[in-house]
Protein backbone atom coordinates (compact mmCIF):
# COMPACT_ATOMS: atom_id res chain seq x y z
CA UNK A 1 0.00 0.00 0.00
CA UNK A 2 1.36 3.43 -1.00
CA UNK A 3 0.78 6.13 1.62
CA UNK A 4 1.58 9.85 1.77
CA UNK A 5 1.51 11.53 5.21
CA UNK A 6 1.37 15.32 5.59
CA UNK A 7 2.49 17.10 8.77
CA UNK A 8 2.01 20.89 9.20
CA UNK A 9 0.75 21.30 12.76
CA UNK A 10 3.88 22.98 14.12
CA UNK A 11 6.58 25.29 12.76
CA UNK A 12 8.18 22.22 11.12
CA UNK A 13 6.43 20.89 8.00
CA UNK A 14 7.27 17.34 6.92
CA UNK A 15 6.03 14.49 4.76
CA UNK A 16 6.44 10.74 4.80
CA UNK A 17 6.04 8.37 1.88
CA UNK A 18 5.48 4.72 2.57
CA UNK A 19 5.26 1.62 0.41
CA UNK A 20 5.67 -2.11 1.06
CA UNK A 21 9.45 -1.55 0.93
CA UNK A 22 9.46 0.91 3.83
CA UNK A 23 8.87 4.49 4.90
CA UNK A 24 10.89 7.61 4.12
CA UNK A 25 10.41 10.86 6.04
CA UNK A 26 11.46 14.30 4.75
CA UNK A 27 11.39 17.75 6.32
CA UNK A 28 9.89 20.37 3.99
CA UNK A 29 10.31 23.56 6.03
CA UNK A 30 11.38 24.73 9.48
CA UNK A 31 10.32 28.35 9.49
CA UNK A 32 6.62 28.49 8.68
CA UNK A 33 7.06 28.59 4.89
CA UNK A 34 4.71 25.61 4.70
CA UNK A 35 2.59 26.92 1.86
CA UNK A 36 5.61 27.47 -0.42
CA UNK A 37 7.44 24.24 0.43
CA UNK A 38 4.87 21.49 1.04
CA UNK A 39 3.64 20.72 -2.47
CA UNK A 40 7.07 20.99 -4.20
CA UNK A 41 8.47 18.66 -1.53
CA UNK A 42 5.76 16.08 -2.23
CA UNK A 43 6.32 16.44 -5.97
CA UNK A 44 10.11 15.95 -5.65
CA UNK A 45 9.87 12.84 -3.55
CA UNK A 46 7.18 11.18 -5.64
CA UNK A 47 9.31 11.87 -8.71
CA UNK A 48 12.37 10.29 -7.08
CA UNK A 49 10.36 7.07 -6.83
CA UNK A 50 9.00 7.51 -10.35
CA UNK A 51 5.55 7.75 -8.81
CA UNK A 52 2.75 10.11 -9.70
CA UNK A 53 -0.02 11.20 -7.36
CA UNK A 54 -2.16 8.44 -8.91
CA UNK A 55 0.11 5.81 -7.35
CA UNK A 56 -1.08 6.82 -3.88
CA UNK A 57 -3.61 4.60 -2.11
CA UNK A 58 -4.01 6.67 1.06
CA UNK A 59 -3.33 10.16 2.37
CA UNK A 60 -2.73 10.65 6.09
CA UNK A 61 -2.91 14.17 7.48
CA UNK A 62 -2.26 15.68 10.88
CA UNK A 63 -5.44 17.60 11.76
CA UNK A 64 -3.99 19.20 14.89
CA UNK A 65 -4.32 20.71 17.32
CA UNK A 66 -1.52 23.02 16.23
CA UNK A 67 -0.73 26.27 14.51
CA UNK A 68 -3.75 27.74 12.76
CA UNK A 69 -1.67 28.95 9.82
CA UNK A 70 0.09 25.58 9.40
CA UNK A 71 -2.95 23.30 9.73
CA UNK A 72 -4.82 25.17 7.04
CA UNK A 73 -2.02 24.43 4.57
CA UNK A 74 -1.75 20.71 5.33
CA UNK A 75 -5.44 19.91 5.71
CA UNK A 76 -6.50 21.81 2.58
CA UNK A 77 -3.71 20.17 0.54
CA UNK A 78 -4.63 16.69 1.79
CA UNK A 79 -8.34 17.20 1.18
CA UNK A 80 -7.75 18.58 -2.31
CA UNK A 81 -5.54 15.65 -3.28
CA UNK A 82 -8.00 13.10 -1.88
CA UNK A 83 -10.92 14.71 -3.69
CA UNK A 84 -9.09 15.09 -7.01
CA UNK A 85 -7.57 11.58 -6.95
CA UNK A 86 -10.59 9.90 -5.40
CA UNK A 87 -8.13 8.48 -2.89
CA UNK A 88 -8.71 7.40 0.73
CA UNK A 89 -7.87 9.95 3.44
CA UNK A 90 -7.48 9.68 7.20
CA UNK A 91 -6.85 12.34 9.86
CA UNK A 92 -4.65 11.90 12.93
CA UNK A 93 -4.21 14.00 16.06
CA UNK A 94 -0.86 15.74 16.49
CA UNK A 95 -0.89 14.97 20.22
CA UNK A 96 -1.52 11.25 19.61
CA UNK A 97 1.27 11.06 17.02
CA UNK A 98 3.68 12.72 19.47
CA UNK A 99 2.67 10.30 22.23
CA UNK A 100 3.54 7.37 19.97
CA UNK A 101 7.07 8.75 19.56
CA UNK A 102 8.01 8.24 23.23
CA UNK A 103 8.72 5.06 25.21
CA UNK A 104 5.26 3.54 25.48
CA UNK A 105 5.58 2.66 29.19
CA UNK A 106 6.05 6.33 30.17
CA UNK A 107 3.25 8.38 31.70
CA UNK A 108 3.32 11.39 29.40
CA UNK A 109 1.72 14.66 28.37
CA UNK A 110 2.02 15.60 24.70
CA UNK A 111 2.47 19.37 24.59
CA UNK A 112 2.31 21.50 21.42
CA UNK A 113 3.07 25.22 21.36
CA UNK A 114 -0.23 27.04 20.69
CA UNK A 115 1.49 30.48 20.78
CA UNK A 116 -0.08 33.50 22.43
CA UNK A 117 1.09 32.14 25.81
CA UNK A 118 -0.73 28.80 25.66
CA UNK A 119 -0.12 25.15 24.81
CA UNK A 120 -2.24 22.27 23.49
CA UNK A 121 -1.84 19.23 25.73
CA UNK A 122 -3.16 15.71 26.29
CA UNK A 123 -2.33 13.04 28.87
CA UNK A 124 -1.39 9.49 27.80
CA UNK A 125 -0.83 6.24 29.69
CA UNK A 126 0.52 3.50 27.42
CA UNK A 127 -1.19 3.97 24.06
CA UNK A 128 -4.37 5.31 25.67
CA UNK A 129 -5.36 8.97 25.94
CA UNK A 130 -6.59 9.58 29.47
CA UNK A 131 -7.65 13.22 29.05
CA UNK A 132 -9.29 15.29 26.34
CA UNK A 133 -6.99 17.49 24.26
CA UNK A 134 -6.81 20.79 26.15
CA UNK A 135 -5.70 24.34 25.47
CA UNK A 136 -4.22 26.02 28.54
CA UNK A 137 -1.31 28.05 29.90
CA UNK A 138 1.95 26.21 30.69
CA UNK A 139 1.42 27.10 34.37
CA UNK A 140 -2.05 25.53 34.40
CA UNK A 141 -0.67 22.41 32.70
CA UNK A 142 2.13 22.25 35.27
CA UNK A 143 -0.46 22.16 38.05
CA UNK A 144 -2.49 19.46 36.29
CA UNK A 145 0.45 17.15 35.51
CA UNK A 146 1.73 14.92 38.29
CA UNK A 147 5.45 14.69 39.01
CA UNK A 148 5.53 11.10 37.70
CA UNK A 149 4.90 12.29 34.17
CA UNK A 150 7.20 13.25 31.28
CA UNK A 151 6.39 16.21 29.00
CA UNK A 152 7.13 15.93 25.28
CA UNK A 153 6.71 18.21 22.26
CA UNK A 154 7.71 21.70 21.11
CA UNK A 155 5.42 23.27 23.73
CA UNK A 156 7.27 21.38 26.48
CA UNK A 157 10.58 22.66 25.06
CA UNK A 158 9.47 26.26 24.73
CA UNK A 159 8.28 26.43 28.33
CA UNK A 160 10.93 24.07 29.78
CA UNK A 161 11.89 26.67 32.44
CA UNK A 162 8.30 26.95 33.66
CA UNK A 163 7.96 23.17 33.86
CA UNK A 164 11.40 22.72 35.46
CA UNK A 165 10.51 25.26 38.15
CA UNK A 166 7.43 23.14 38.93
CA UNK A 167 9.55 19.98 39.24
CA UNK A 168 8.42 18.43 35.94
CA UNK A 169 10.60 16.47 33.51
CA UNK A 170 10.81 17.45 29.83
CA UNK A 171 11.95 14.82 27.32
CA UNK A 172 13.89 16.88 24.78
CA UNK A 173 14.08 14.06 22.22
CA UNK A 174 10.45 14.22 21.10
CA UNK A 175 9.76 17.65 19.61
CA UNK A 176 7.44 17.68 16.61
CA UNK A 177 5.00 15.07 15.27
CA UNK A 178 6.60 12.62 12.85
CA UNK A 179 4.56 11.83 9.71
CA UNK A 180 6.23 8.39 9.51
CA UNK A 181 4.90 7.77 13.00
CA UNK A 182 1.46 8.98 11.90
CA UNK A 183 1.49 6.21 9.27
CA UNK A 184 2.42 3.62 11.95
CA UNK A 185 -0.40 4.90 14.12
CA UNK A 186 -3.11 4.54 11.48
CA UNK A 187 -1.81 1.07 10.57
CA UNK A 188 -1.90 0.03 14.22
CA UNK A 189 -5.48 1.30 14.45
CA UNK A 190 -6.45 -0.37 11.18
CA UNK A 191 -7.67 2.90 9.71
CA UNK A 192 -6.04 2.36 6.32
CA UNK A 193 -9.40 2.16 4.54
CA UNK A 194 -9.86 5.88 5.18
CA UNK A 195 -12.53 8.18 6.60
CA UNK A 196 -15.26 10.39 5.17
CA UNK A 197 -13.50 13.27 3.39
CA UNK A 198 -15.96 15.79 4.86
CA UNK A 199 -14.98 14.76 8.39
CA UNK A 200 -11.32 15.75 7.82
CA UNK A 201 -11.21 19.26 9.29
CA UNK A 202 -8.60 21.01 11.43
CA UNK A 203 -8.96 20.60 15.19
CA UNK A 204 -8.44 24.16 16.40
CA UNK A 205 -9.65 23.73 20.04
CA UNK A 206 -9.72 27.50 20.52
CA UNK A 207 -12.99 29.31 19.93
CA UNK A 208 -12.84 32.30 17.63
CA UNK A 209 -12.08 35.06 20.09
CA UNK A 210 -11.99 38.27 18.13
CA UNK A 211 -14.47 40.59 19.77
CA UNK A 212 -14.43 43.31 17.21
CA UNK A 213 -15.33 46.94 17.72
CA UNK A 214 -16.71 47.48 14.25
CA UNK A 215 -18.53 50.63 15.35
CA UNK A 216 -15.23 52.52 15.10
CA UNK A 217 -15.62 52.28 11.31
CA UNK A 218 -19.21 53.54 11.13
CA UNK A 219 -18.35 57.18 10.95
CA UNK A 220 -15.98 56.56 8.02
CA UNK A 221 -18.03 54.06 6.01
CA UNK A 222 -21.43 55.78 6.23
Amino acid at each position, binding site marked *: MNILAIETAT*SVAAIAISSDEGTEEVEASR*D*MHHVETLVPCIQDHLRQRSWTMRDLDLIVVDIGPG*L*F*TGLRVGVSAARSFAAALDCAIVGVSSLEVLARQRRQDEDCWSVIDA*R*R*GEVFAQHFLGDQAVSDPLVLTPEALGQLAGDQTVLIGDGAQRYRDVFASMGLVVNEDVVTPSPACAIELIKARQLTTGQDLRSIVPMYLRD*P*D*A*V*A*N*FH*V*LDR*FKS
Partner: protein
Amino acid sequence: MTLTLTTHSVEETRDLGSQLASVLVPGVVIVAAGGLGVGKTAMAQGLARGLGVTGRVTSPTFTLLASHRANNSRGITTMLHADLYRTVSGEEVDDLAIGELVESGAVCFVEWGDLAPDVLGAQRIFVSLSQGELDDDRIIAIETQTTAVAEGAIAEALGGWSS
Protein backbone atom coordinates in the same frame (compact mmCIF):
# COMPACT_ATOMS: atom_id res chain seq x y z
CA MET B 1 1.62 56.60 30.09
CA THR B 2 0.98 58.08 26.66
CA LEU B 3 3.70 59.69 24.61
CA THR B 4 2.27 62.47 22.42
CA LEU B 5 4.23 63.66 19.40
CA THR B 6 3.63 66.01 16.45
CA THR B 7 4.82 65.65 12.85
CA HIS B 8 4.45 68.37 10.22
CA SER B 9 4.50 66.41 6.93
CA VAL B 10 4.03 62.93 5.46
CA GLU B 11 7.82 62.64 5.22
CA GLU B 12 8.16 63.31 8.94
CA THR B 13 5.53 60.69 9.75
CA ARG B 14 7.56 58.25 7.63
CA ASP B 15 10.76 59.20 9.46
CA LEU B 16 9.03 58.70 12.79
CA GLY B 17 8.00 55.18 11.67
CA SER B 18 11.59 54.48 10.67
CA GLN B 19 12.88 55.63 14.08
CA LEU B 20 10.26 53.52 15.87
CA ALA B 21 11.69 50.45 14.08
CA SER B 22 14.95 50.97 15.96
CA VAL B 23 13.40 50.00 19.31
CA LEU B 24 11.26 47.03 18.17
CA VAL B 25 11.92 43.36 18.94
CA PRO B 26 10.39 40.23 17.36
CA GLY B 27 6.80 39.56 18.47
CA VAL B 28 5.65 43.16 18.79
CA VAL B 29 2.40 44.26 17.13
CA ILE B 30 1.76 47.93 16.40
CA VAL B 31 -1.94 48.62 16.62
CA ALA B 32 -2.55 51.72 14.51
CA ALA B 33 -5.73 53.77 14.80
CA GLY B 34 -6.86 56.88 12.94
CA GLY B 35 -9.10 57.95 10.06
CA LEU B 36 -8.55 57.80 6.32
CA GLY B 37 -5.56 59.77 5.03
CA VAL B 38 -4.15 60.46 8.47
CA GLY B 39 -0.82 58.75 7.77
CA LYS B 40 -1.08 55.13 8.93
CA THR B 41 0.35 53.77 5.69
CA ALA B 42 3.10 56.42 5.64
CA MET B 43 4.11 55.33 9.11
CA ALA B 44 4.12 51.68 7.98
CA GLN B 45 6.36 52.63 5.05
CA GLY B 46 8.77 54.34 7.41
CA LEU B 47 8.73 51.31 9.71
CA ALA B 48 9.54 49.08 6.71
CA ARG B 49 12.49 51.32 5.80
CA GLY B 50 13.75 51.16 9.38
CA LEU B 51 13.47 47.35 9.40
CA GLY B 52 15.38 46.97 6.13
CA VAL B 53 12.46 45.96 3.92
CA THR B 54 13.44 46.56 0.28
CA GLY B 55 10.13 45.94 -1.54
CA ARG B 56 7.38 48.51 -2.05
CA VAL B 57 4.96 48.84 0.87
CA THR B 58 1.38 49.80 0.08
CA SER B 59 -1.72 49.54 2.20
CA PRO B 60 -3.03 45.94 2.11
CA THR B 61 -6.65 47.14 2.05
CA PHE B 62 -7.80 44.31 -0.23
CA THR B 63 -5.17 41.64 0.45
CA LEU B 64 -5.71 42.18 4.23
CA LEU B 65 -2.23 40.94 5.16
CA ALA B 66 1.14 41.37 3.46
CA SER B 67 4.42 39.76 4.48
CA HIS B 68 7.74 41.50 3.74
CA ARG B 69 11.20 40.07 4.33
CA ALA B 70 13.15 42.32 6.66
CA ASN B 71 16.90 42.68 7.09
CA ASN B 72 18.14 44.33 10.27
CA SER B 73 20.33 43.77 13.30
CA ARG B 74 17.37 43.32 15.65
CA GLY B 75 16.54 39.71 14.72
CA ILE B 76 13.31 40.72 12.98
CA THR B 77 13.11 38.61 9.82
CA THR B 78 9.62 39.54 8.67
CA MET B 79 7.44 42.65 8.69
CA LEU B 80 3.76 41.80 8.51
CA HIS B 81 1.43 44.60 7.43
CA ALA B 82 -2.30 44.17 7.95
CA ASP B 83 -5.31 46.36 7.28
CA LEU B 84 -8.57 45.51 9.05
CA TYR B 85 -10.65 48.16 7.25
CA ARG B 86 -12.29 45.63 4.91
CA THR B 87 -12.81 42.90 7.49
CA VAL B 88 -16.43 42.43 8.45
CA SER B 89 -16.33 40.12 11.46
CA GLY B 90 -14.20 39.12 14.39
CA GLU B 91 -13.80 35.68 12.82
CA GLU B 92 -12.24 37.23 9.74
CA VAL B 93 -9.67 38.96 11.92
CA ASP B 94 -9.06 35.67 13.75
CA ASP B 95 -8.45 34.00 10.37
CA LEU B 96 -5.48 36.28 9.75
CA ALA B 97 -3.82 34.66 12.81
CA ILE B 98 -1.69 37.73 13.47
CA GLY B 99 -1.08 36.83 17.13
CA GLU B 100 0.31 33.47 16.01
CA LEU B 101 2.32 34.60 12.96
CA VAL B 102 4.11 37.39 14.79
CA GLU B 103 5.83 34.80 17.01
CA SER B 104 7.86 33.60 13.98
CA GLY B 105 10.50 36.35 14.22
CA ALA B 106 8.11 39.01 12.95
CA VAL B 107 6.68 42.38 13.88
CA CYS B 108 3.28 43.45 12.59
CA PHE B 109 1.82 46.86 11.79
CA VAL B 110 -1.99 46.70 11.82
CA GLU B 111 -3.93 49.55 10.24
CA TRP B 112 -7.37 49.92 11.86
CA GLY B 113 -5.98 47.57 14.53
CA ASP B 114 -8.30 49.16 17.09
CA LEU B 115 -11.13 47.12 15.51
CA ALA B 116 -9.97 43.95 17.25
CA PRO B 117 -6.91 44.62 19.43
CA ASP B 118 -7.51 41.58 21.68
CA VAL B 119 -6.47 39.01 19.07
CA LEU B 120 -3.33 40.82 17.96
CA GLY B 121 -0.95 39.12 20.38
CA ALA B 122 0.22 39.99 23.85
CA GLN B 123 3.02 42.45 22.96
CA ARG B 124 1.26 45.53 21.64
CA ILE B 125 2.10 49.17 21.02
CA PHE B 126 -0.91 51.40 20.39
CA VAL B 127 -0.40 54.27 17.97
CA SER B 128 -3.21 56.74 17.40
CA LEU B 129 -2.88 59.29 14.58
CA SER B 130 -5.07 62.37 14.24
CA GLN B 131 -5.20 65.72 12.45
CA GLY B 132 -3.22 68.55 14.06
CA GLU B 133 -3.60 72.31 13.92
CA LEU B 134 -2.25 72.90 10.41
CA ASP B 135 -3.29 70.84 7.35
CA ASP B 136 -0.15 68.71 7.34
CA ASP B 137 0.23 68.42 11.13
CA ARG B 138 -0.41 65.05 12.72
CA ILE B 139 -0.74 64.30 16.42
CA ILE B 140 0.68 60.85 17.15
CA ALA B 141 -0.10 59.29 20.53
CA ILE B 142 1.88 56.18 21.48
CA GLU B 143 1.10 53.86 24.36
CA THR B 144 2.92 50.59 25.07
CA GLN B 145 1.14 47.47 26.33
CA THR B 146 4.21 45.28 26.37
CA THR B 147 7.17 44.60 28.57
CA ALA B 148 9.24 43.80 25.47
CA VAL B 149 9.85 47.47 24.63
CA ALA B 150 10.51 50.08 27.32
CA GLU B 151 8.47 53.27 27.10
CA GLY B 152 11.61 55.22 27.86
CA ALA B 153 13.34 53.73 24.82
CA ILE B 154 10.49 54.86 22.57
CA ALA B 155 10.49 58.35 24.12
CA GLU B 156 14.23 58.58 23.56
CA ALA B 157 14.11 57.33 19.95
CA LEU B 158 11.26 59.67 19.03
CA GLY B 159 12.24 62.61 21.23
CA GLY B 160 12.71 64.93 18.25
CA TRP B 161 8.95 65.08 17.68
CA SER B 162 7.89 65.87 21.26
CA SER B 163 4.98 68.28 21.33
